[in-house]
């Protein structure tokens, strides 16, 4: 899991931030106002997908934590299954 490649870190940060933004969109906008390409879009619906937002937010935070670990000094453990 410790790839330490700058591209991997950049991608994790970009997708992490994007998912947190998506979470805010889920919380702020009713299902009818979501862009059609976003899961949960329902034309004319006034329902807020709160749980979708929580899922996106937690995934985003997980990606940012992953990126944070990747920027460590290098003594981090690579999991070693026995």
């Amino acid at each position: 899991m410790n790839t330490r490649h700058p591209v991997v870190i950049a991608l994790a940060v970009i997708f992490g931030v994007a998912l947190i933004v998506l979470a805010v969109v889920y919380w702020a906008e009713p299902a009818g106002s979501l862009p059609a390409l976003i899961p949960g879009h329902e034309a004319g619906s006034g329902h807020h997908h709160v749980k979708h937002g929580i899922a996106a937010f937690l995934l985003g935070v997980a990606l940012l934590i992953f990126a944070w670990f990747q920027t460590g000094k290098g003594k981090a453990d690579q999991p070693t299954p026995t």
Partner: protein
Amino acid sequence: MIAAAPITYFQAIVLGLLQGVTELFPISSLGHSVIFPSLFGWDIHQNDKYFLTFLVATHLATAIVLFVFFRRDWIRIFRGMGRSLRDRGIAPDDYDAKLGWLLVVGTIPAGVLGLTLEHALRGLFASPQSASFFLMVNGLLLFGAEALRRRAPQTDDDDDRRIAKQVSFPESFFVGAAQALALIPGISRTGAAMGGGLVVGLSHKDAARLAFLLATPIIGAAALLKIPELAGSEGTGIRGQALVASLCAALAAYASVRFLMRYFETRTLIPFAIWCLAFGGACSIYFAVT
């Protein structure tokens, strides 16, 4: 329109005890909660929001009991995770930190799928007939997990360290994904997670421990999300019953987790597999002919 008392106190006590036992035994609490009211002829409709809200209160009680039972483990885990965040990495000998992040990785699939698909899946599969069928499937899964079990050598005397040494992050994700099967009423969360743990090489005792640690945040978070509904209009007429059921669930859950942690030191999932196949099969026949 909701009747004045959709669930009686007697029903609440029975359902609370049932929930506390079946949530932690690998036999599906949701499946039994769907099947038993129909078997007893109770006028409780499993898809009604008040019933789901009622069940949530019992889930929260179970999660609190699990957290209290493993409180020393959780304190070690939280401290380890804090150290790893501070150091921006998991030190090779910091097994508490590794176990903490294993639990996070294992929680992701069940958490994301639960948050996005739970409502749709319950709507599709929350009938007693469906729950009976999937209870049989759960029995087959438990048999399968025993058959596919990988026997790895014991690597440490400490339970948590042993799990952290033995399980990799992809394997933890796999165990968490198996746990997501429990979104279908009739499939057991404990059974699926334990089955996943056995397949990746854990002993029965360690697989049970990992399953209970993985279950705590999922059950607790799912319950906390629904608690506002219990406080709102959907809790009208069932708050007292929900409180009584929660107390019963807590007592039953505590007795269950104590029993199971001893039971799995020496025994297997086979008796539970037989129960699921027999009870699920009998209920399938009963619901088909009535």
